[in-house]
Each structure stands twice: as structure tokens, then as C-alpha cells.
């Protein structure tokens, strides 16, 4: 059966333009950008072009983009590199309880090494409260890290307001923008964020490539030690093809962002309306008024999330329960738990996420196939009153 891919927050297919752009860097242009000779220079030129393309999508200068191996490394680098640099000023960090594990596990690492972390709670809609952010600030707070958009629910955080609070208190501000990039406008000229984590494979570029925006003047310790690549801030031979792919994806997206945003938002509405019509008791998780245009997190009463995923997979629908990283583990989503989603709904959530390639026909096909799966699993399940 043809696969209906509705898991674009986990990873995306390559954009056709990206596929065409990267191939030469696997074939004839294989040089090491650190090399002086012609093949090396050609690779170096390619990565500088890509750096400018990535910078342009977020309104940054090319020198403010550091290429990494992905969003996870960017998060580790941003947090642990900053905390090391800022150690003389303090060791307290404020973040949210719904960050990606790459941020949360870096925080736990910091705590194990004697640092302290405040985790802001979220309300039932998945939103943080700015008053609680202000209240959490201490004299030794050196870093605030709040994601731009949540990967599981799609909830968009009030980044401009958080950045303003951070700026007012003279505290460095990092945002994990992995899920926001290419879906909503990001402009670092307008938003005073100091560090921004980005990842290629969420925007139609290859896996294993990411970037960290580091605003000019922001001192940060390297996280990978070694060669002189990336101005001495990130060692390791450049993943040239990945970098070219990320640049190409950013370049393709820039003039199309607004229109894609609206197209996907409209498709998502069709999807939600269609599912509600078939399964009226479905509940949407996360603030629908401040949300990515492509993400729909739903709880289907009486159906467990993994069971539904498998059922959907059998009819060729690829979806996700919780974040892809945790789908291998049995625990409930830490995001929905933090939102106080009650037990039954907590375990019955499924995420559907659209991409640039998602068509209206695919949404229609999903709406044709999904109700039967839901119906079968509901009829198998315990009556609601037991």
C-alpha cells in the first residue's frame, strides 16, 4: 500500500531540490574543505554558500551560523558551552518542563555537575506563564532556554516576550527552534535571541546536519574539541553534502514560507475537521491558537496510542505517539504529563504532522482510512464505564 507519511515532525523526506544539490558532493566534489587544493577549495566555497543561505532564512549574518551534526548537538553545545563560559557569573539556568530531551538531558547533566536548573511548568494548554519566568530569575541565573515550538503538541511559545525578559535582566537566551524553522517566520534581527538550535532533517535536508546560530559577541566554549573548523568553535571534518543540503533547503523555503504556512494550516484544519466528524469524542492536546501550522496532537478515548499507531501503520499511515525519540520507550509523554493531561487521554495520544510534500489528496486518503482503524480498536477496548 502507498504510505501516507504524517510524521514530518520526526523527520522529513528530502526536498527534490536538495536531492539534486547534494549529489555532486558525494560524487565529484568530495574534497575536504580544510584542504588547500582545488577539491578542498570547491568544498569550502560550497559550505560558505550554504552558510549564507541558512543565515538568510533567519535574518542572521553568515558568521553567526555554526554547522553541527544536528539539533541534539546544537542543544548540547548551546547549553553546556554557554554554562561553561558563564560559570564565573553563576550556574543557574531556567528552562521549561516540555523541552526536547536534548535540552532536558543536558540540564540533568548540568545538575549532576553541581549546577541548578528551574523547570517552568506549563498549563493545560501547554503554555508557560511569563510571570513564573520572571519569578524564577535569580542573581546567579545565566541562561534561559525556551523552545520556539514544541515538537509533540506544536505549541508556539511567546519567544519575543521571553527574549525581552531575558534582555531586560541581561541574561543570555537560547531557543531550540528545531521544529519552528521553516514553519513559522524567524527573524533574529527582530527577536533578541542569542542562540538558536536548528536541524536539517526537519526541513527537507539530510539527517546528521544541524546548525547553531550564535549572535555576534556571544562568547561560547567549543563542545567538540579538535581542528580549527568553524572558527575553532566546532571541530570535525565538515559534513559537506549535509551542509549543502541544509543551505539548499533554507534557500528553497525562504520565499515560500508564508504561503506554505497557510497551505499547511488549511490542510491541518481539514484533517482535524474530518477526524472530528468521524470520531466526535477526539480531544486535541495543546493550545490550538498558538500552534505550528503542521502539527495535530489528538487523544482518541479508549484507544492506546501505540496500538493506534500500529493499526494506522497496517493501513499505510505513518504517524507518531509522543516524540520519535521516546516512542521506543514505554513511558508516557513528558510533555502531555507536564500539561496535566489525565491518565486515559495521556496514553491515547497520537501526533499527525504535515510537511511541504503533504497534499490534499493525502489528507483525504487518511480521512478514508483512519475511522475504520479507530472503530476496530474501540470495539476491542474496554467499555468506557468499566
Amino acid at each position, binding site marked *: 500500500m502507498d504510505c501516507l507519511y504524517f510524521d514530518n515532525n520526526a523527520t522529513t523526506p528530502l526536498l527534490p531540490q536538495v536531492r539534486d544539490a547534494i549529489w555532486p558532493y558525494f560524487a565529484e566534489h568530495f574534497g575536504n574543505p580544510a584542504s588547500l587544493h582545488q577539491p578542498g577549495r570547491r568544498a569550502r566555497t560550497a559550505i560558505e554558500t550554504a552558510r549564507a543561505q541558512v543565515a538568510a532564512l533567519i535574518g542572521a549574518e553568515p558568521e553567526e551560523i555554526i554547522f553541527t551534526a544536528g539539533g541534539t548537538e546544537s542543544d548540547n553545545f548551546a547549553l553546556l558551552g554557554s554554562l561553561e563560559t558563564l560559570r564565573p557569573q553563576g550556574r543557574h539556568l531556567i528552562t521549561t518542563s516540555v523541552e526536547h530531551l536534548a535540552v532536558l538531558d543536558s540540564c540533568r547533566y548540568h545538575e549532576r555537575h553541581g549546577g541548578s536548573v528551574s523547570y517552568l511548568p506549563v498549563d493545560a494548554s501547554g503554555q508557560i506563564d511569563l510571570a513564573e519566568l520572571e519569578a524564577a530569575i535569580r542573581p546567579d541565573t545565566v541562561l534561559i532556554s525556551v523552545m520556539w515550538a514544541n515538537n509533540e503538541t506544536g505549541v508556539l511559545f511567546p519567544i519575543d516576550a521571553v527574549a525581552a525578559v531575558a534582555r531586560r535582566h541581561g541574561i543570555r537566551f537560547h531557543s531550540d527552534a528545531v521544529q519552528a524553522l521553516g514553519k513559522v517566520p524567524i527573524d533574529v534581527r527582530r527577536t533578541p535571541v542569542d542562540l538558536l538550535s536548528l536541524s536539517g532533517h526537519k526541513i527537507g535536508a539530510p539527517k546528521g546536519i544541524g546548525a547553531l546560530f550564535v549572535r555576534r559577541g556571544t562568547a561560547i566554549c567549543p563542545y567538540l574539541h579538535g581542528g580549527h573548523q568553524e572558527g575553532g568553535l566546532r571541530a570535525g571534518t565538515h559534513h559537506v553534502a549535509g551542509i549543502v543540503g541544509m543551505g539548499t533547503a533554507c534557500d528553497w523555503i525562504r520565499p515560500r514560507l508564508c504561503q506554505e504556512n497557510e497551505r499547511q494550516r488549511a490542510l491541518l484544519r481539514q484533517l482535524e475537521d474530518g477526524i472530528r466528524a468521524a470520531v466526535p469524542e477526539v480531544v486535541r492536546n495543546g493550545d490550538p491558537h498558538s500552534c505550528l501550522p503542521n502539527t495535530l496532537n489528538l487523544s482518541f478515548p479508549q484507544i*492506546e496510542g*501505540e*496500538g493506534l*499507531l500500529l493499526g494506522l501503520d497496517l493501513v499505510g499511515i505513518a504517524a507518531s505517539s509522543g516524540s520519535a525519540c521516546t516512542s521506543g520507550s*514505554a513511558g*508516557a509523554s513528558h510533555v502531555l504529563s507536564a500539561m496535566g493531561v489525565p491518565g486515559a487521554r495521556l496514553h491515547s495520544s497520537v501526533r499527525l504532522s504535515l510537511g511541504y510534500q503533504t497534499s490534499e489528496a493525502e489528507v483525504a486518503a487518511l480521512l478514508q482510512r483512519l475511522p475504520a482503524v479507530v472503530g476496530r480498536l474501540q470495539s*476491542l*477496548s474496554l467499555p468506557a464505564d468499566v
Partner: protein
Amino acid sequence: MYTDKVMDHFSNPRNVGQIDNPNVVVKVGDPGCGDAVLIFLKIENDIIVDIKYRVYGCGAAIATTSMASTLVKGKTLTDALEVTDERVAEALGGLPESKMHCSNLAATAIRAAVTRYLHPPEVKAGGEGSGN
């Protein structure tokens, strides 16, 4: 990650449903993951002549409950008490390590149902109640 047998039992679970006049009904749940099974037994002369169930749970929970039901149907109560989570998982060609606990659900429910049948709680009439 799941064997073909697991997927088969997940897609076409055997013995699903309810028994109108069961000898025993038990509900068992895994509070950690929210999964639950409601199991009905029809017993004649210490033999499980019919078994039905409803299950809320992950793929492994559904498949193991289905497999467990086939393992005890037509068997004696003594045999049924010997159905362990390992035996259910084995009959399915194995389960991923992180999913081994799911096979507990069905085996526990069957043991609880048989035990309740053999030693009915004193106060309640009709053999109904919720175990675990």
C-alpha cells in the same frame, strides 16, 4: 520490532468480546502504562470452555492477550494457572525487551480470574468484581 505473529494477533485478535453469563470476570491493569484488560471465563468441570476479553493497550498488550486466550481455551484450570508471561511471549516468537512487561497483563489476568473462581471473595455475589 514486533514479530509477524505479534502483528497477526494484533490485527486479528482471537476470542475478543464478552460472555453473557460468565463464571468469572476480572479486570486487571498496569497502572504504569494505563493498559487494562477485562476478562470473562466460562468454566465447566474445571475446564475453560470459553474465554472472551476486552483490552485497552499497546500492540504487545493486545497481541499477548489474544495469544494467552488461545493458550487457555479448552484447557484445565491447572493448565491455565501455568500460563506465564514468558510462555505467552514465547508463543508469539518473542517480544522486544522493553515490551516484555506487557505480556504480564494477560497472564496476570488469567491467573487472577482462575484464582477468583477457585476462591471467590466472600462478600460479593455473582462472581463479579475487579481484581488487582
